[in-house]
């Protein structure tokens, strides 16, 4: 009997743990099935031949290439902004302000208030309805400042040898800007979380060793944040790929001009070409999945390389 006891406890434990894990994963499993079904029905509507015909279509290829480049651009720009911003937000957090301004409660309060407002403002693009982003961009570029920017950009493109690109509004740069506006907010959030999870103490030690803040940032902080940076980049990239509302308003949906994959889906739908829309969606899904897998692999290889 005493021998049995551990065994029975073990089986009870196994039973409850089975119950626990299956009930906990049940809902997630349903969601997984939903995602798979969504992709599956898309394949019902279009066959391999349709996809091949689509890929042979110059316009579809254009929109794929344009999607990929604009997304990458928007994602890189987002990272440029997100990395320093995320670091500032993480390191000038509540505690840090508290610590540095302890002697001056008024200033402390003010700094906390500013920090809160900055935090909130940086989240605005995330909560803003997509169409509002588009309309706001459109209107912004009609102000004197926006117009000047538009003209300068046009001159710059002419100088580059692209006189056919007329500034920003309703042109390719509008796509990038629309994608960037939303993607950057997500990237900033991710980078901030990343830096918040990184221990600040190695950076303080680096300071005592004689390193200036800039050096501390790129020799100690950044190397620890690279996985977070890749994650932020992926998130920004994926957001940009799926971006549609602002592009519709701010960049238009002109074929072979500002047509990205999401636009292709929309245009095909609008022209009553459901099959074309589904094929474009499948391409969109494939591109996104490939990107996600690549990032995962990249992160995984980084892990095997002895990092954290």
């Amino acid at each position, binding site marked *: 009997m005493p021998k049995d006891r551990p065994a029975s406890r073990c089986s009870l434990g196994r039973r409850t743990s089975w119950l626990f894990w299956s009930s906990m994963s049940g809902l997630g499993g349903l969601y997984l099935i939903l995602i798979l079904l969504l992709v599956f029905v898309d394949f019902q509507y279009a066959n391999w031949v349709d996809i091949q015909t689509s890929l042979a279509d110059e316009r579809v290829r254009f929109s794929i290439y344009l999607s990929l480049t604009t997304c990458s651009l928007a994602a890189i720009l987002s990272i440029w902004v997100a990395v320093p911003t995320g670091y500032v937000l993480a390191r000038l957090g509540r505690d840090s302000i508290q610590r540095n301004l302890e002697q001056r409660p008024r200033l402390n309060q003010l700094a906390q208030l500013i920090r809160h407002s900055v935090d909130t403002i940086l989240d605005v693009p995330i909560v803003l309805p997509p169409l509002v982003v588009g309309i706001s961009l459109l209107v912004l570029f009609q102000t004197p400042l926006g117009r000047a920017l538009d003209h300068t950009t046009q001159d710059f493109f002419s100088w580059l040898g*692209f006189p*056919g690109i007329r500034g920003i509004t*309703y042109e*390719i740069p509008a796509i990038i800007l629309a994608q960037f506006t939303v993607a950057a907010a997500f990237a900033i959030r991710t980078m901030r979380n990343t830096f918040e999870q990184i221990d600040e103490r190695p950076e303080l030690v680096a300071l005592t060793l004689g390193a200036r803040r800039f050096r501390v940032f*790129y020799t100690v902080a950044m190397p620890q944040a690279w996985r977070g940076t890749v994650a932020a980049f992926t998130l920004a990239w994926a957001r940009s790929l799926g971006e549609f509302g602002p592009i519709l308003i701010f960049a238009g949906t002109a074929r*072979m001009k500002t047509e990205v994959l999401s636009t292709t889906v929309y245009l095909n739908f*609008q022209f009553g070409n*459901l099959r074309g829309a589904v094929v474009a969606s499948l391409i969109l899904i494939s591109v996104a999945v490939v990107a996600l897998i690549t990032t995962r692999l990249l992160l995984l290889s980084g892990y095997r390389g002895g990092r954290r």
Partner: protein
Amino acid sequence: MIFSRTTQNNRNGRASVALLLGLASIVVVFLLLTFSLRLRPDARRTTADNVQINVYCAAGVARPVEQLVNEFNALMGTHLEIVRTGGSGELAGQIATEFQSGVQRGADLCILADDLLLEKGQNDGMFREVFPLAVQKPVIAVAAGSDWDIQSLSDLVSRTEISYGLTSERAAIGKMARAIAKRDQLLIPLEVNRKTDSENVMTLAQALITGSLDAAIVWDTTVNQLNQGSDQPVLEIAAYVDPQDQIAGRVGLAVLATSSHPTLAIQFARFMSAPDTGGPAFHRFGFVTHPGDHWEEVPEVHLFMGSMFTPVLEERVRHFGERHGVNIYSRWEGCGKLVASIHSINDPELFPDAFFACDTHFMKQVQEYFQAPISVSSNDIVMAIEETQASQIRSPKDLLNANLRIGLCDPDQSALGWLTQQLLSSTPYQALYEKIQEQSAVTVDAGPTLVSQLTAGGLDVAFVYRSNVMADPHLTKNIKIIPLHHSRASQAVQPWAISKSTKNPELMRRLFEMIIRSDTMNSFEKAGFRVKATEKD
């Protein structure tokens, strides 16, 4: 690992890879930007030939419009592009946003399936020209081969087992369907029993195809377009929403007031509405087209205009011709001369496409060649007198006693002359005309000549139209107008008529629309005309 491996080879030992990546990303951004711009086939086109017309097109009309845009571009070497499609209301909304915020590269022209929106846009000053294109009818559509037997709108809304959808009121079809339902007092059941409220007609039709709905209120043309896009019919028409055909969707094209290339846009509008060019594309998808003029790249029209209109209309007609890309040959002369020309022209190419006469008297002489005339304005005959002489003259009778140089118009050559003759021969003037004619210094063939002579000091008094004097207030500030209080003095009525033989009736109708537009009519009034109600006589 990556971060430290490369560090050793650096100048000061250890520039971090983070820094290198940052710098590399700048290069990548530049390369990607260049690549994305290079993708555009027309990126290297210079600005000179970079004329692009942006077309916004209602979803329900997109198929024929796309075809016509391609045909037009191939024919003319232009760059028209459908840059936006969507529900009519949605598009009108974006255009309004662009209009209000002053977007420079927004729509040049739009094709909407809702004539109320087109009219509203025109009233708001957003749309300059509106061209009617086609008519489509709301129908109740079901998936092809389905068993639903739906006879009418009331059938649809009363049978709760049918799940049907319609679009929101922002799309023309939704608006139309509700208008019919309201008339038939079915609006409440229609709204209550509908299952969905799509944003535009194509979205709704797709829902029908995929089987999410049993029936939907769409355009007859939507059904045609979708059936043509697939190998076999996907939808069929179960019933017409309005069997009486009173309420239908009118598709029209509007040229925006802010369009950067209105002439090209209007040319495209003519192309679309021409029965020989636009017609087939629309008919292919089941539209009933509004007949426009036959397609000509640059139409040529001849206008005969009474000389009294010169100050108000000459510039506007020229401007109209430029904007519409039309060659307008116009003659501005006394109406007698114009009538004589009309009688004598043998070459149908030179025959006027429209005639705007100074008085109905002349129109009547050539009525056989023209469609029913429309009275546009009326004008008074007045005595125009040099200021210093004005004190002694109160009525035409006073002229006989004063030693004044009098100017008259020839009654055969001009309406003014004829009307003057009529006026001064009737009670209470009786035979005054002959006496004045004997005394008159000159008889010319048009009123403006008399005014010129008055200002030059060659005449003391003349019988002219009020508008002749008011045409140039600066020049005529020394001339006083003495109104003639007589019923016959205000009988000059200016009719407009379009030739029966014209090849461009639609164009002439547009020109006429320009003439009766409020700003032109205001100038008419400023010039001394009285604006008439513009119904057909």
